[in-house]
Every structure is written in C-alpha cells, then in structure tokens.
C-alpha cells in the first residue's frame, strides 16, 4: 500500500528539522508551477530554471518565516516573482539600455509564442493576444485563472492590496479581451 502523500505543512515542518529530502519533495511537487510563474514573470522560458533554482534556495533559507497555517503557494510564488523581477532588472542593466523601454522584456517572446501549439485558429488568436499583454497582466491572470489563487493570495504574491488586485485583474481581463478582438478583426479584414 502506498504511503499517503504528506502535506506541504508536514514537509515544511520536517525540512525545518534539517531533513533536506523533505525539502526536495517540496521542490519536486511545486517546481513546475514555479517554472510557469517564472516564465510568465520573465516573459520567456529562457533562464526560468535558474530563477526557480535561486528561488527555492531562498525559500529554504527563509523557511522558518513561513506560517504553516497558511497555504504555501502565495509565499512561494512571491519569492519566485521577486527573484524573476530582480533577474530581469539586473539583465536590463547589463544590457546598458539607455532607455527603460519595457517592450523588450514585456513581449512574451515571439519564439515562445511559436512554441505554443496553435490547435486552432481561435487558439492561435488567444496565444497572440496573450503575447501582446504586458508581463504584469499575464502574471496576474495566470495566478488567478491558472493557479487559482484568491485575490487575497495574489495580493500577497504581488505585495499589494486586495483591492488593487481586483482592479488590476479587471483591467488585465479587459485588455486581453481587447487584444483578442483586435486579433479577430485583423483576420476578418485580411
């Protein structure tokens, strides 16, 4: 009979006793979601693995700060998001760009867009619309719709107030809808 899967809180408690394997289990359990968040925050999958690795090391070092009565994901996603943003900022500086144009960092990677499988024309239109959103819009929609985080949890991830999350979500949804309509109308015009 297989062992019941230990909860995140149990794994954290065990890791805090010095059991690194328990932390390894946490990494394996959440790394894919973290990789997705990092890719969305970076605007590319390139370098996302390094961000996730750094983020998990930071998590381990800060593990004693995690409140085990709360879900792990918001705390974890916050560290991943901050690590990705720091990485992005650092890379921008290395590129020594005189202007702080966000377009380069915020265009979710045309190459990645190509890698997204377009199963249908509508699917392709959605992918294009998502790629035209800025990174913040993509991130907040991903946290809400894909990772199913509550507005309060997203506020914890993004370091803002729940009310701000609500308005940002609303704007991001509207911008996605606008982008989708624009993509569709272009196709009609063609």
């Amino acid at each position: 009979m297989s062992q019941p899967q230990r909860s995140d809180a149990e794994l954290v408690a065990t890791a805090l006793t010095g059991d690194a394997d328990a932390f390894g289990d946490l990494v394996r359990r959440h790394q894919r979601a973290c990789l997705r968040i990092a890719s969305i925050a970076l605007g590319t999958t390139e370098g996302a693995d390094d961000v996730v690795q750094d983020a998990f090391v930071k998590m381990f070092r800060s593990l004693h700060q995690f409140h085990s009565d709360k879900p792990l994901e918001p705390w974890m996603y916050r560290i991943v998001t901050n690590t990705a943003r720091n990485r992005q900022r650092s890379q921008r500086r290395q590129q020594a760009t005189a202007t702080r144009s966000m377009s380069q960092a915020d265009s979710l990677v045309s190459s990645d867009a190509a890698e997204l499988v377009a199963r249908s024309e509508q699917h392709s239109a959605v992918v294009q619309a998502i790629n035209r959103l800025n990174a913040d819009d993509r991130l907040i929609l991903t946290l809400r719709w894909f990772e199913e985080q509550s507005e309060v949890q997203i506020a914890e991830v993004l370091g803002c107030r729940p009310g701000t999350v609500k308005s940002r979500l609303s704007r991001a949804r509207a911008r996605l809808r606008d982008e989708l309509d624009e993509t569709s109308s272009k196709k009609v015009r063609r």
Partner: protein
Amino acid sequence: MSLEAQFIDAIEDLDLPDLDVSAAVLNEIPATVPRRGASTGWLLRAAAIVLLACASLIVAVEPARTAVARWLGIGATTVEIDPAVQPDAAPPPNSVVGAEVDSTLWNPIPLLGQPISVSTAGDGSAAYFWAAGDDWAGFTDDGVGVSLSVRPVVGAPSLKIASSEGDVQPVEIGTGASMIFGLWVGADHLLVSEPDAPGVRAARVLLWEQEGRQLRLESNGDLDDVVALAESVDVARLVAVLEGTD
C-alpha cells in the same frame, strides 16, 4: 468557450522545459536549516553593502520586539523584521490634502506632473506630494499618491518594522559607476519615529542615500516603476535648489 478557459488552454501549452531542479537546489543549501538569528541570507549580504545604522538608534524597542533578529537600514532609518508586527491593525495613513503650489517651483519628478504640496525646512529637508492621476503609469487605484522626501543623512532616527524578511530587499538604483544600492520595503509596515510611540502604518517605500542626503520615495506602485522614478530624480540639483544655490 469562456475567455478564462481559452487563457488556461493557452497557458497549458506553454512549452516549459521538463526538468528537475531539486538536486541542484539541495546541492546549494546547507545541511541544516538556519534558525532565526543565524548569519545567513541576503539580508546580511545586503547589510554589508547598505549602510548600517545601529549606533545612532535611540528609538525604544518594545519588549515583544527584543527577539528581532536582524536589522539593516539607511542613514538614520533602521529597518527591522518582526513577524509579530501587524501593520494593518494600525490606523490608515493620512491622505494628502491638496494645496496650491507655485507652478514655477522646480519639480524633481516631472514624470508625475505637478506636485500638489511641497514643504521645506531650514535644514535642507523637503517633502513633495503628488496626487494619484494619469501622469504616471505606476499609480494604483487606491488613491494614494507619491511622496518624495529628502533630508540630511544625520537626522532624527526612525525605525521601520516589517513583518517579513521577504518584504525588504536591496535594489540597484542607476547603472554603471553611478549605481547605488537602495532599500525597498515592499509592504505596509510600522513606522516608529518617536521613542515609545506605538508606530503608525506606512506604505511601501524606497530608501536611498545620495549627495549626502537620505531620500524616501513612498508609493504603492510596483518596484520597477518606483526605481524608475528614483532614477529620474536629479538629486544634485534637488540639493542645490533646497540650499538656494541653483
């Protein structure tokens, strides 16, 4: 198909690399988990970079905070981490009341439009306030504007108490040889400016030192936006304006 379902469908197709970082992570972490107060983590590395400010700290610390493990700061401002702190329990910050400002007054952050209030003191301190508006993309919907304050580095000490280490991070301001480190307190926190005072809730703030001044940029905008604002400030000219030498 709903917009949400289409979005999920597209994100599911994001071609993530199929990898396992657990071995690399475990290779990087120490054999035992650092306890509160242990000498680890970025905070101490940051503390080595950012100016430590304990010598002049005279703010009384409540007994419950004596277990605070680590602190760092800039100028006369010290930042502590105390998980017991509940900034939300404190009264909300006062909203900025608009006032007539001389339109010919030099504006340190033109990106924000005209400030609605400026106050100066004889010691070279000043505070500028901007109301939330359309001039800057970083304004959020909570109606809280932006404030920039500047004061001599040597001044009355103040204490900021954040509830989580994750709320405080060093950030780079500027590039190349002119790059300096600032400190971002990225969540509501308690500000204690008088000994034995209970502390008031303060909003997210970027602290840095430049041209012999301590600067504080308070905003609910994202860190990237706030850093961009900080980088746009011509601090040398700001100091000259305040000293009347411009």
